[in-house]
């Protein structure tokens, strides 16, 4: 088999499953938008008197609710741009982990509350979104 013939073979399964470049572009633009809004909220929240951890909790719960509502909607670009992009970039798991770690020493009770409450609140919000959106998974 020549090199040109090998190039004509279909891609292996996992490569075929990778998103197309136009979909990745939509995800990237959506992620930039979602991440920008998260950073903007993180800047405005403390100015309005809300601690940074509270802003991120609100962002994550709101993002999970929106994910439940929007997960089954949209077309080729809109769906990945909105869900994987905007909502994925808007919410942040690593920020939550760091907030918990930062609060362990000064306020251990608050750190424990964040550790338990955020998973419960985000999953509950997402379930509510799925039910309200009328699309069960």
């Amino acid at each position, binding site marked *: 088999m020549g090199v040109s013939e090998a190039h004509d073979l279909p891609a292996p399964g996992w490569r075929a499953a990778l998103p197309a470049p136009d979909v990745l572009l939509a*995800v990237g633009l959506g992620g930039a938008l979602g991440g920008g809004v*998260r950073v903007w909220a993180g800047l405005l929240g403390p100015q309005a008197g809300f601690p940074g951890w509270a802003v991120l909790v609100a962002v994550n719960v709101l993002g999970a609710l929106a994910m439940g509502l929007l997960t089954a909607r949209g077309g080729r670009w809109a769906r990945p741009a909105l869900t994987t992009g905007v909502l994925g970039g808007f919410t942040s798991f690593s920020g939550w982990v760091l907030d918990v770690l930062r609060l362990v020493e000064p306020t251990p009770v608050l750190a424990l509350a964040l550790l338990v409450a955020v998973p419960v609140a985000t999953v509950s919000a997402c379930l509510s979104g799925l039910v309200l959106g009328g699309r069960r998974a």
Partner: protein
Amino acid sequence: MTGLDQGIGGPLVATVLVALVVGAGAGSVLRALVLARVGASGDGARSLGSAWVNVPASALAAALLVWQTQLRLLPGTGSDVAALVVVLLLGVCGGMSTWSTLALELARSVLAGDRRVLVLQAVGTVLGVLGGVFGAGFAVVVLLLLG
């Protein structure tokens, strides 16, 4: 956690904000690629779902935080280093990790009554994050001590 109160000021702020947005977009693309790859894998890997992006992103974020904290103790560490850390921490790690996808995966498992996946993902994420965060933080401290 804004991170922009970590020693960055002046004209650098605008540049950092743009870099944050670009970093969040890049992190999101990386997340989409990893999760697509995981989605095409076997059942075991797929069951862990978004843990494949949340664990490494959290470990990298912890390593960056420890690195930044240690560097602050050194004289002459400029605001450009702080800016780079903030961009990687809030932009790339924040964009790569996600609560919304994890919440959706867990909610779907709850609705489907799939306890196996629910437990596997919850336990896998917790153990992975614990190991990743403390392992990465410890590795950075050791590297800085050796360096």
